[in-house]
Structure formats: structure tokens, C-alpha cells
């Protein structure tokens, strides 16, 4: 199957090359993403739509192509988000855990170096993240939250675009093999 002359699906997991990062990258990048989410909107409120922790989780998950690593990163980042929010611990944790797991699962099958795949993954996982959080808030916390699909779709597109650029920058942090 070809798409624009390039393959976007991998025939086997062996074709996918696992990206490796230094340890500090796994610490600093999520931390900076969380800081970005809690700090930048203070000065630029219009940037509050960006879910930088989610994008970082997606990136590490799809690049590591390992579900356990993905869900671990998702769980830690999600718990950190919960810790800095008014929500009970576990809401973002569960959501990001699932995002990390599924992103890693998709990354095994797709050529995640492709820009379009990254754009689609970013768009999809943002929608998944928002929808899952909405479901959990309604189901577990009993909160009557509204889910505005068009608005969420637009925000998902914006996050996907930003995600493509972010992923490109994070690619610089990969270890050369």
C-alpha cells in the first residue's frame, strides 16, 4: 500500500526502528510540557488550548513503540497533571495512560516518522483524550460537562499542527544509532 509514494504502514514490527532518548529527555521534556501548560497561559491565555503534555506522551509513545513505556509515560505525566489540578488524582493519569498505550500500539504499525501520520495521530489522540476525559468525568466524578465536538475538533486540528512541529523539534533529541 502506498500513500503519496511513501509507505505509512509497516509490514512488520521489525521494520519500525525504535527511537532512543537520553534519560534526562524523559524527565525534562514532560516537565517542560507541564510547565508550559500551567505557566504560559498566564501570559498568553490564547495558548491554553494547547495540550502539550498529551502531545509529549503521544510522541514518546509512538517513537518508543513500546506500550509499557508509553503507558508509563502517560501515567506519570497524567498524574503530574492531576497533581497540579483541582481534580482527584487519576483522571488525567488514566486518560494519558490509555493514550500512551494506544499511541505506542499504533506506532508499532505505522511509520510515525511521516508528517501526515503524526498530524493524524495528534488529531485523533486529542479527540480521544478529550472524549475519554469527558466520559470519565461524567462516569466517575458525576460532573455534567459539555462536549462540544466541533470546537473540540478545531482544537484537535490546532494541536495536531503544533504537534507536528513539536515532534520535529523533539526528533533532534533522539540518540543517533
Amino acid at each position, binding site marked *: 500500500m502506498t500513500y503519496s509514494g511513501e509507505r505509512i504502514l509497516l509490514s512488520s514490527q521489525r521494520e519500525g526502528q525504535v527511537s532512543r532518548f537520553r534519560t534526562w529527555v524523559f524527565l525534562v521534556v514532560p*516537565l*517542560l510540557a*507541564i*510547565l508550559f501548560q*500551567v*505557566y504560559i497561559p498566564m501570559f498568553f491565555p490564547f495558548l491554553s488550548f494547547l495540550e502539550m503534555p498529551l502531545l509529549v506522551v503521544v510522541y514518546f509513545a509512538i517513537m518508543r513503540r513500546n*506500550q*509499557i513505556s508509553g*503507558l*508509563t509515560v502517560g*501515567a506519570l505525566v*497524567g*498524574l*503530574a497533571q*492531576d*497533581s*497540579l489540578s483541582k481534580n*482527584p*488524582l*487519576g*483522571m488525567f*493519569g*488514566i486518560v494519558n*495512560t*490509555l493514550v500512551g*498505550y494506544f499511541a505506542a500500539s499504533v506506532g508499532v504499525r505505522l511509520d510515525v516518522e511521516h508528517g501526515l501520520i503524526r498530524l493524524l495521530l495528534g488529531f485523533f489522540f486529542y479527540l480521544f483524550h478529550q472524549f475519554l476525559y469527558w466520559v470519565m468525568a461524567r462516569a*466517575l*466524578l458525576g460532573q455534567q460537562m459539555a462536549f462540544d465536538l466541533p470546537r473540540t475538533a478545531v482544537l484537535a486540528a490546532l494541536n495536531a499542527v503544533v504537534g507536528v512541529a513539536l515532534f520535529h523539534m523533539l526528533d533532534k533529541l533522539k540518540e543517533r544509532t
Partner: protein
Amino acid sequence: MESLLNRYRNITVLLLVIMAQLVLLAVSAKNDQDVRFIRIWTVTAVTPVARIIEGMRGGGSGFFHNYILLHDTNAENRRLHAELDRMKMENVFLKNELNTSERAKALQVFQQHTPSRTVAATIIATGAGSNSKVVFVDRGTVSGVQRGMGVVTPDGIVGKVTAAYPTASQVLLITDPDFAAGVVTEKGQVHGTLKGQGTPECKVDYVAFEEKVEPGEWVYTSGDDRIFPRGFRVGIVKVVRPGQPFKEILVEPSGMERGLEDVLILIEGVHQRIPDAPSGMQPIYIASPPPGSESKPADAAAPASLGTEADRLRTQYQTLGEEQKHTYGDNPPGAKPVDFTRLGNPAAAGQSPAAGKNPASPAVAPPNPGTGNNPPSPAIAPAIAPPAAPPATPPKTGTGGAGGTPGNPSGPPSPTKSAPPPAAAPAKNPPDAARRLNPSAGPSAGGQLR
């Protein structure tokens, strides 16, 4: 079993993690107390970095504002300068408006008070030529302006109309080299011709070197040029240099001192009096006489009717005629003429009763400055006293003339050096003599003046 766990390791881990978080969530939601250490760890991990970033941001922001954004300061400085310039321009504009208003008011006041008929005009253009001092005003023949009319301001003359068009006129300024006008100085009434030089100062020509003109003296129009009526200000004498045959006098025109925007065109000029010099306007104080002084005040002097020499002469002749029973003008043939040799000799006259009746009369006390019996201070009083009234009984003047002719060919001694000779027909027509000596004496009661 082990292979099963290995096969489903990922999903197992996922489920464990999810389950753990669900428990965490359930505990937190149920007890409203979450596991505090997780938050502590997270906050402890995040806040120092946030503090560092905030510090960097604050410092960077301060550096940015204090150094980098000085560019904006420069821009703001330029904007403030531009605004200041605009305000200055506005201020100048408002000052000009105020000056224009004041000039218009001054022009209106001057126009109302000057006897000449004028029309106000505004200068709308200047003439071509570097050395040409010509302007155009917005009044022309439609407004009654004609060529040759003078142009003035409340401060002085400005120029003259050299060409009149229907809606505008060309005015030659007094600083133009082709301009000339007759002028007269304030103090010495020295006449001259004002000429422009193309410079801010004008010169007054044709003033003889022996004439006295001083710097600071005002110069007025003399009216000789038939353009400017007499009495309009021209300027102040700035420089006076001796010369042969004429002085070199430079005058600073006063008409254009406050700019030249609105002027008055003299449609119909009326000559005016040239103001006296300021020094001549000073009043003179005369102190009162000391107490016990023998000199009498002026009102105690001779009657006002004898205030002039002619009146005194007439009184003397009248007294002499009464003494000799002679009526002037009634001289039948063979009548004895009056003996005029006794005139001016009171002793010979035998202390006439008229003299006793009027001790202050000059006939009894002839005006002789050398004697001590002078009437009281004629030098002080008569000059201030009003003109004397005509005598109550004027002598009748004869038409024959022979009766009035003195018999003595040498004539009577003149009582004063300024008195006319009695032979000059004092009896024939004394009032005429009196009129010649004092025109302000008024006509005689007989109305026989010519």
C-alpha cells in the same frame, strides 16, 4: 502461565496501572483526600523550575523593557517631540490669532478716532522683486481706493497706493527706494523728505545742516506731499549725522513695527495737529507770595479793562480830553485842540480827579518798570489774567481827522517803548491801534473796527 503473562504483558501492565489509578481516584473522590505525597512531589518538581523561569522572565522582561525596549522609548520620545512641535505650532497659531484680534481691535479704535475717512484692508500678497517693497491689499476701486492714497496703521504710515484695481490695490511701502513723503520733526518742526532705502530704516532728506534734529525725536507727516495728511506718525529718528549741505537722518518707521497684516487706506485725509514735544507740556508751578509782602495779588491790580497798553493810552487820552473839556470827534471849527503836551505828566495835569478815582490806573501810575510804584506785578498777573474787557466808555472816534490830529508836531512823549506813536491817530481810531497791538482785545463797544 508464564507464557500467557508474557504474551499479555502489555495489556496486563495497562490494566494494573489503570486499576491502580482507579483506586487512587476512588479514594480521592470518596474521602475527598488524595494521596498528598504525589502532589507534593509534583509541585516540588515543578515549582522550582517555574520559579527559575519566572525569575528569568522577570529579569528578561526588565532587561527587555529597560534596554531592548529603549527603542520604543526613542519612538515615544520622537512621538512626544512631534506632539510638542505640534503644540508649539498650535500655540503660535493661537498667538497669531490673538495678535490679529488685537490688531483688528486697535485698527478699529484708530479708525473710529481718526478724523480722516479710512477703509480697512488686509494684505494678501507681496510684490515680486527682491528689493521691491510692494504689497497687495484686498481693497480696490470698488471700495473707493484710488492711486496715490496713503496707507497707514495705528502706529504710523505704511505706504501709498501705487495702483488700484477693482478688487485689490498695490501698495508701495515706505521702505521701498521709490517711496517719498513729506515729513516734519516733532520738536523743531523741521521739514524734510522721507525716502525709503530698501532697508528697514528710511532716511529724511533735504534737512539743512543748521537745523536741529535729535535722535529719539518723533517724525510726523507734514502734509506737503498731498498724500498723507499732516500729523500722522512716521517713525523715530535713530541716527543724525552732520552733512553738507543736508543732514543725514535715519528714521525707524513705526507703522510696521508689529507686523503688517491689516492696514487702513486713507480715502479722505484730514490734517491734524502735530503733538507738542513732551518737554513743552510740563506745567510750571508758581508759588504763592510770601506773607506780608507788599506786592498785591494779581486780582488787586489794575482793572482788567486796562490790561493792555492801548487801553491805558486810550484812558490817558480820554482823561486828558475830559480835563480840557474836549470831546473827541466833536470838533467845530475854531475849537481849541487838546493840549497833548500835558499827556504823560501827571503833575502838570494837576492830579486829575480821574486819577484819584482810579488809583490803580496806569494813567496815574504810568507803566514804568524802573520805578517802585509799579502796579502790582504785571509780569505775573496780566499774563495769566483773562483778556481785558473793552472799556466801558470808549472814546468817540471822529471822522474829521483834523480835530484828532495833535497840534504838537513832535508828538507826545511815548509812555512806553512799545506804544504806538500817538500821532499815528490814536484819536482818529484808537481801537484800531489797540487791535493791532492786541488782537484778542476784542472789538470796541462802538463796533467801529474795520
